[in-house]
């Protein structure tokens, strides 16, 4: 069915513009009222969910052809899902699913992905990671650590580092700190080392469904074969795709947790406690794929009947059941740390700007979006912007440079380690 499945949505959008804003009741200021980074940057309605609905309808009905601008409009979206939240407050539509389907449609027509995406995609094919790094070096980040290699011995818990934490020398310490913390708290944990392969989030984000399904199926099979009961990852991108896209590929017989969830669990179970005070004023950035994108998707197959009712009735994600409280619980449990919230949080969080293939194809747009988040964070008076996603950490750091800010970006686990 593809994009056709969403024809009802496409023709029923009344262009109310809710997709462009935080819900009116949650708007606290003029400056932080927007929800869509793409609209903020490019201004034209075409760059909103409403405009992309119009574009999709026009493509399906043969009203327009592909132009370079068509591809730009489709791919200058971080797939952050902000539009999905405010639209769904009002309507029973699926903007985020449409945006994904639109990219698959582009790939099916042989027009996508963009040249900027190709190196990462090819690298995933060849090296199992988007960073053009050899697959054999994937486990090197943990070479000095004493940890089970799940390919050789069984462990209940797999720590899945993800590509960026594995290869990015500036961020490897996050994976190391998280793994060490799991080991120190007595978790039966192991890693896959060189056998770990990309979650394939970067390929599904640019519309390459076939490659995604192939890679996702392999991962599911590997996790199952190795008898893994729980997968813990520190990467919000991996987490989001495991939760929202993998169930459509295969039977998930294992639990998936983000490391912040696990930390929260350890604190609640009194298996993790803090001995040091960390005097910091911090604000928390909700990564899109941990928050709005961290909900399991309903694999609905059905039709719209009279009055637009769905048959069979479908469950909808409202962006509310993502991982919002666990990181906040952890921050509040650390002695000395003061959490000051930004205006746009939880389901209305402003995207860091890196997702959806934007960082590789439209780096200026990515940094402009991050810069806005940095400015918002600065307004709180916090010294540190804390998050738990390598894409967010990296792009927000670029935003700090662009803004000339004194703010620091830290991963939550770093602060946790400081307090232990």
């Amino acid at each position: 069915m593809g994009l056709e499945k969403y024809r009802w949505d496409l023709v029923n959008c009344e262009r109310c513009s809710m997709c462009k804003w935080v819900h009116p009741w949650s708007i606290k200021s003029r400056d932080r009222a927007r929800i869509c980074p793409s609209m903020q940057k490019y201004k034209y309605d075409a760059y909103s969910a409403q405009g992309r609905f119009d574009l999709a309808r026009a493509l399906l009905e043969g009203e327009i052809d592909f132009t370079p601008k068509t591809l730009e409009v489709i791919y200058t979206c971080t797939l952050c899902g902000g539009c999905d939240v405010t639209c769904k407050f009002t309507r029973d539509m699926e903007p985020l699913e449409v945006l994904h389907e639109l990219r698959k449609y582009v790939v099916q027509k042989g027009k996508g992905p963009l040249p900027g995406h190709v190196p990462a995609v090819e690298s995933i094919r060849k090296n199992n990671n988007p960073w053009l790094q050899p697959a054999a070096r994937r486990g090197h980040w943990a070479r000095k650590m004493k940890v089970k290699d799940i390919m050789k011995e069984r462990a209940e818990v797999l720590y899945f580092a993800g590509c960026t934490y594995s290869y990015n020398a500036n961020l490897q310490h996050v994976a190391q700190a998280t793994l060490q913390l799991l080991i120190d708290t007595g978790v039966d944990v192991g890693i896959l080392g060189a056998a770990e392969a990309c979650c394939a989030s970067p390929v599904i984000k640019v519309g390459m469904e076939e490659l995604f399904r192939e890679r996702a199926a392999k991962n599911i099979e590997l996790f199952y074969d190795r008898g893994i009961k729980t997968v813990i990852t520190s990467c919000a991108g991996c987490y989001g795709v495991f939760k929202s896209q993998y169930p459509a590929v295969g039977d998930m017989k294992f639990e998936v947790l983000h490391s912040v969830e696990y930390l929260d669990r350890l604190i609640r179970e009194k298996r993790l406690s803090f001995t040091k005070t960390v005097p910091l004023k911090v604000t928390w950035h909700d990564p899109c794929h941990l928050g709005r994108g961290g909900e399991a998707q309903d694999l609905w197959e059905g039709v719209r009947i009279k009055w637009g009712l769905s048959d069979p009735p479908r469950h909808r994600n409202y962006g509310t059941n993502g991982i919002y409280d666990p990181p906040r619980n952890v921050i509040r449990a650390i002695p000395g740390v003061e959490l000051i919230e930004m205006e746009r949080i939880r389901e209305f969080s402003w995207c860091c700007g890196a997702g959806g293939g934007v960082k590789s194809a439209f780096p200026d747009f990515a940094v402009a979006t991050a810069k806005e988040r940095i400015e918002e964070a600065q307004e709180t008076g916090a010294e540190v912007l804390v998050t738990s996603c390598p894409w967010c950490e990296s792009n927000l750091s670029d935003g700090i440079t662009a803004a000339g800010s004194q703010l620091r970006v830290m991963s939550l686990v770093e602060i946790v380690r400081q307090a232990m």
Partner: protein
Amino acid sequence: MSLPPGAYEALENALGAENVCDDPAVTSGYSYMWLLYSTHAQSGRYRPAAVVLPGSTKDVQTIVKIANRYKFSYIPVGTNLLPPTIPARPDTIIIDPKRMDKILQIDTQNMYAVVEPYVTYAQLQAEAMKVGLTITVAEAGAQVSVVANNMFQGMGGTGHKFGYNRGILGCDWVLPNGEILYIGSRGNPHAGWFWGDCAGLNLKGLLRADSGHCGGLGMVTTMAVKLFPYPGPKTFPVKGANPDFKVDFPKDLFRLNLIKFPDRKKLIEAMYEIGHAEIAAAVHEEPASMVLSGASPSVEYFWEKWPEFMKQWRNVLSVTLIGFSSPRQVVYEQKVLDQIVEELGGQYIREDSELWRIGEDNIGEQIRTGLSNRLFRVAGDFFVIGGFGFDSIDQSYKMSEEYMWPLIEEGQRKGHFIPDDTHNDWLNSYQLGHFSETEPLIFFEHDLDAGATFITSYMKTIQEALKRKMCTTWPLGPMNYIAGPHMCNYHELVLNIKRKLDPRLTSNPDYPVPQQPPG
């Protein structure tokens, strides 16, 4: 769908290449609109030839002058919610004000704000609340443009207290020839923005008349709007999470009353009495469909509850009291309201009841509209059956009863409108009950047959109103040719104004009245 030779380059030179676009991928985003699809009108619509993003009044003047020089038309938009902003002819550009999004001033002493066209009500109210002020927010939703909505109708949830479209003060208006007309106190050098009227001829009426000119007479680039006192919290008090937000105003200063009356006549009597007593900030008869859709997180929820809910929610008046001066104002007004309710046999809906739970967010809706677009959730498309009765409360009721509801029932018999036997309208009191408006809501699918029934019914309501010499409001564009001959040929006067101000017909040519009657 292309501009005359040289026109595009002229626009690019004036605005910068990044602020002009004629690519179909971009212009498609301005070519499709609710209602048009289901009323066959989409086939007569076009993608704009280009979209331009001015950054200032001067930019708008330049665009307008280029349009006159190269002889193409333009449509200025705000947040772009209404069908008249979709081009009806090929060589038309859209002036999209997304770069004109600043709140230029909030004057707390004189209680007004100066805004550009892409500032929404939610943004302005959020800033105003920080300094103890508010604005009456469009019922189309707080995500719409303050400027565009004020030019269209400017009515809002708290219109009972704050008035109907009394908000426009000084304005900078770019006329269709590119000159600027300063409205109100802006017409006097150094006088500022504080006043909507001015010495000599008052041209504010020309700016908006009954329902605005829909971009047919140029573009307002800056507008001062009236603000009002607001005694509440500095941020809008919302709680919960999507899609179940609730509002939480301090009860000693903000009190919602939901009152069931034995019949609509008693309800209307109560509306008048509340007006006579000069109490309350918001007074609305809330129709069951609106209340339930506002509380529905999904279309499935609505349809599960609807059959039973429409039996229970009848003749319900929503009255919000606000303690502008102190909590004692609320105490006093509540006592007065209690007397009125008792005398007219009304009964308060209990706060521990399911009906209250469904209706309690009315107070949030009246202060900052956030639920109204859920009306589209019910069936896909939605509108009101014809010409919004604007008159006294009695007259509004009469219009609804005599000819609007029979038309709705006809649409229901065809299966085109949703079943609804409540005879509940959205009946609003403005200006302490001196003025009223009724909107019998209809819901239909995005379907050509249902759309045909809707448009036929809509036209009939205009004719029925004219037959009875009742007020017919909102005859947009060509519909003025139906209403005009019955009302001193006002349409000819409007046509003459259009011809005088826009001799080349560059500014949304078919508005406010097309040059020729519809064929």
